[in-house]
């Protein structure tokens, strides 16, 4: 039995991720939505209507489907691959191709690839074609079965970011299957963790999953550093930055003395444009003659307000000084922050998260209900 009495309510216009170890029935569940697998019992409702009530191919043409390795038609050009479903729906050749060109742009494919064949594209490009093909007829529902599993980590990250961007523009109801919990947490509005035998272990938004795993199985599946990973959901905007202990590389002795106070053990040296160079103890700084090679490394600066507390903490632990450097969008230093301050911000974020915890999981609009028994 692949899937057993699964009951899921998939929120409209958001990404729902089904995640679990191999053999947990996540792909079977996905394939039941477009009836590539028929449930032995139970019903699947789309907008409150049983999906069995319409012809199977009509149902499938109303749902985009993206698959591992893209599954492109190797004998058709990229543009004709993308135009497949519109053509089947009876669109004229030119209109379908026009639509395909539009989608190539949307998924970040160069227009010059239109007349190429799949073998001429890289794995990542093929996967983009797969996404464009699934979107071609503008279906309200998108089913994605481990679409990014077969590409390398760098390309995968690019594709994930691209998917989030496209989703922001289009607002599809996406059901996404993966075995990668990090991918699930990154992409999911809601994450359904499944265990072997097709049973639902937990269905929750990702930060709730990380903070309150339902049982030992989910906890084990999430891995060891879920506390750190959960910091990705806390914004760094609330961090109180210190702007004082920052000096330019060409600072005078007076300027250095002015910012040296007993509570700042280190000063951050920046170049004339305000980009970070490194840390130094105030006494080691010789005005007008700073040896940049001898400065302490400043780790990885985080973009204040844009990146999460996870990035801030990462920057702080990377630098031997224990201080993180906050920058703006252009890479100029806007302040520095200590591990202690980040720690306090984490504690207060926890307290806030606890109060707001009962607000999550509320959704309205179209629902894809699945009630399946095997």
């Amino acid at each position, binding site marked *: 039995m692949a899937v057993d009495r699964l009951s899921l309510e998939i929120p409209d216009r958001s990404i729902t991720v089904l995640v679990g170890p191999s053999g947990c029935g996540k792909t079977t569940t996905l394939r039941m939505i*477009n009836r*590539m697998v028929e449930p032995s019992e139970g019903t699947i409702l789309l907008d409150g209507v049983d999906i069995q009530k319409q012809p*199977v*191919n*009509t*149902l*499938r*043409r109303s*749902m985009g*489907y993206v*698959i*591992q*390795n*893209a*599954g*492109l*038609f*190797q*004998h*058709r*050009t990229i543009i004709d691959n993308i135009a*497949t*479903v519109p053509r*089947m729906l009876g669109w004229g050749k030119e209109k379908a191709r026009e639509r395909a060109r539009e989608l190539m742009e949307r998924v970040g494919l160069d227009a010059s690839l239109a007349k190429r*064949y*799949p*073998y001429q594209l890289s794995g990542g490009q093929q996967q983009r074609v*797969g996404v464009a*093909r699934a979107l071609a007829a503008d279906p309200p529902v998108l*089913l994605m079965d481990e679409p990014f599993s077969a590409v390398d980590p760098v390309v995968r990250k690019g594709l994930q970011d691209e998917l989030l961007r496209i989703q922001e523009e289009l607002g599809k109801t996406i059901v996404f299957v993966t075995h990668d919990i990090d991918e699930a947490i990154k992409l999911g509005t809601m994450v359904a963790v499944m265990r072997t035998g097709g049973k639902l272990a937990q269905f929750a938004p990702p930060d709730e999953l990380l903070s309150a795993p339902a049982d030992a199985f989910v906890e084990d599946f999430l891995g060891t550093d879920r506390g750190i990973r959960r910091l990705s959901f806390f914004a760094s905007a609330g961090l109180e930055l210190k702007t004082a202990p920052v000096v330019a590389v060409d600072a005078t002795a007076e300027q250095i003395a002015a910012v040296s106070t007993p509570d700042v053990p280190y000063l951050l040296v920046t170049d004339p444009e305000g980009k970070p160079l490194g840390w130094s103890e105030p006494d080691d700084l010789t005005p007008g003659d700073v040896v940049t090679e001898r400065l302490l490394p400043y780790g990885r600066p985080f973009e204040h307000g844009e990146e999460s507390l996870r990035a801030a903490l990462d920057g702080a632990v990377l630098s031997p000084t224990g201080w993180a450097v906050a920058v703006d969008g252009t890479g100029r230093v806007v302040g520095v922050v200590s591990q202690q301050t980040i720690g306090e911000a984490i504690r207060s974020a926890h307290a806030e998260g606890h109060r707001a915890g009962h607000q999550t999981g509320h959704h309205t609009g179209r629902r894809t209900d699945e009630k399946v028994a095997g």
Partner: protein
Amino acid sequence: MNGFFDIPSDLQHSYLGLIGLHLREALLPVLAGLLLALPLAQLCVRFRWLYPPVLGVTTVLYAIPSLAFFVVLIDYTGQTELTVMIPLAVYSLVVLVPAIVDGVRSVPQETLAAATAMGFGPVRRYVQVQLPIAVPAIIAGLRVATVSSISLVSVGTLIGNQGALGNLLADAMFYHRPVLAVNSVVTTAFLAIVMDALLVLVRVLLTPWMPRGTRKRPKAAGAPEPAAPALEDAVR
């Protein structure tokens, strides 16, 4: 009347006439074989259990010497071209059926799943996805079947001079003109090479989607090299 291209009058054909006759007797059976093999192979793909017995039967048929075939067929179809072409069509199945089955089966699982998920029905999927992707394997099979058929036609000499270019072999003996035998062999080989090249050209035109430089016959086609059956046929 002793030149290379002077054909004895008993054959009632010019040199070019013999070539035309030879091609007709060789290619029509392959075409008939293809038309028969396509649905047969599709059945074998659809019902997996059917493939081993079909393969067994075609192999046994291939093992029947053409002479034996002729003896049986002459009672029904007489000393005609048809008697020569029927065995040739049957022989072509042993190459064409596995070629098409393997070609259709070689379509990647994800491609099939994607097609199904996009709402392709079984017929549309077969015609628009499986068959086009199987073209290289099918043409590989056709090459072997065609070359083999061209060489086999000569046996028709034995039943009332229905062997086209092969008839020159018999005449070479009757008239003590060995040059006729050389003509027969060289022309037959030439026809085989030209037809093979034409089929390669057809494949190149039909499959712009194949990676260049790796235009190899899929090993899955499981067909022997064209030379092998040709030699084997010479023994028949």
